[in-house]
């Protein structure tokens, strides 16, 4: 399972980075989403991987899984979801105002 999770995080990060570096706005949005999936999976793994373990310590439980990363992931998901919504809206506005979905700046806008 470690191998599977690690490969998934690596593949998601690699494709996210690749897509963020594209010149069109749609791949960039997908790239940021990929990166946030990767980081959420990574955060889950920081509490060590365990299957079928409760997150609450009890007398009957054979073991427990660390609940903190789950809380962290929840916060991270909320924030990254909001960010994705924001960037989609922004890209749409930029497309509608400039009728062009290229991400690069015009030469005369550069400082």
């Amino acid at each position: 399972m470690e191998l599977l999770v690690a490969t998934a995080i690596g593949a998601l990060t690699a494709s996210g980075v690749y897509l963020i570096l594209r010149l069109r706005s749609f791949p960039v949005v997908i790239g940021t989403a990929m990166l946030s999936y990767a980081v959420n999976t990574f955060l889950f793994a920081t509490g060590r991987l365990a299957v079928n373990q409760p997150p609450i310590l009890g007398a009957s439980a054979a073991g427990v899984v660390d609940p903190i990363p789950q809380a962290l992931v929840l916060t991270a998901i909320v924030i990254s979801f909001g960010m994705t919504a924001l960037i989609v809206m922004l890209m749409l506005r930029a497309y509608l105002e400039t009728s062009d979905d290229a991400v690069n700046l015009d030469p005369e806008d550069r400082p």
Partner: protein
Amino acid sequence: MNHWIIAPIVLPALVAPLIVLALRYDLLLQRVASLAACAGLLGLAVGLIAMAGEGPPQAYLLGDWPAPFGIVLVLDRLSAMMVLLTALLGLGVAGYAAGSGWDTRGRHFHALLQFQLMGLCGAFLTGDLFNLFVFFEVLLIASYGLMLHGGGAARLKAGVHYIVANLAGSTLFLFAVGAIYAATGTLNMADLAVKAGSATAENADLLRVGGLLLLAVFALKAALVPLHFWLPTAYAAAPAPSAALFAVMTKVGAYSVLRVYTLIFGAEAGSSAWLAADWLIPAALVTLAVGAVGVLGARRLGALVCFSVVASMGTVMAGVGLFTERSAAAAMFYMAHSTLAAAALFLIVELVSERRTRGDRIAPAPQMRHGELVGGFFMVAAIAMAGLPPLGGFLGKLMVLDAARADPAVWWIWAVVLTGSLVMVVGFARAGSVLFWRVEGEPAEGLSKPANAPLWATGAALAALAALTVWAGPVTGYMEAAAAQLHAPQDYVDAVLGAQTVAARALP
């Protein structure tokens, strides 16, 4: 427990929704609420400075949960100082936005401003690495809104870059936080300071990876080379009051480096001790050089000011990166000074561009209205930013240079800081002489008469700079005490981990 510590976060957090929900259609009331909240925040910040000056750091346990299980806020001299700086800038920006009418060019300026202040104060006061991330997000989300305020194609395009760069930074922050949690099992900064030194060899490697990833995030916020590329486009495209407020946002990166790499990765951290020291000085010197060259080469005043901000971050980080008590005090003084100077310069860019037919392009144009006054303002702000006497930028740079004396890289630091200052002086002089002296053609009638309030706001920012210079003695005294506190992390750890909950105190 001292409840005033959380007040700088709660006040803007309450005023912002009030402005959005209740005062949505009344701009006058919005302005009054926003200005009153900023004035209140300033009062709170002054009070916190007095409280922090009394002695050791104080911890505030949210919901009375004992540390390290609950969330803590920590007040010490450094965080109180940063909150005061934020409050000062917030009040100036709110006044400028109301006086110049910037808040009429789009919606929710004041609400976003309050949210930004909340995020900034939270980032300065939190004692928990994950909450540092959360407050970073709060201030970034608000800054996206402020940066895009007023709209326009160029601003939107620049905004896309700014947001994507910061989203990547946030992702990296989470990776770093995750790695640190995996290595230590805690995210409370005081608890991390205890556990960093006693990590097993295997975990210590992971901790170092996390620590250096975190350094990359803070370098992105602080616009250190090679992560500075987003700043000139974003700040040049932002509205003047937003850009003036953003002057303190790069300092959040510098503050975080100061906090995390003295507390968690300080002398006690075993194999991770002084993790950032090897990387910061070279990065800071290259940043300073890039900024200075940018100042010289900029074709617009807005871009010139942005590059001068990059250069000033180079100087600040050179002071931070030496990691001694004296250098930390020097970096803090220069940080406070350069924040105010950058804010004043961003406001001056606006004063210039709305009075000239050619905007802020550094090229001859007809005589502008209030040319002498604006030119005088520019000269004072440029002197402050380039670090010439008599203003405090000179003192700040001198303190950084003096603190570098014992460092092996002293000649590099002296050479780059001094040459960089010279290049910046030349760049500012070139821009100023073209903008204010090379007058060509008849004054144009097409420009609308600019308001006078922005002149007052800019004057106030420059007066704050002058005040900082006049009272440099007491201010540096405070900052030396803050630096001493920073280099005695045991007091911080004791304050947080030894903080008794109200419930525990109530028991006999």
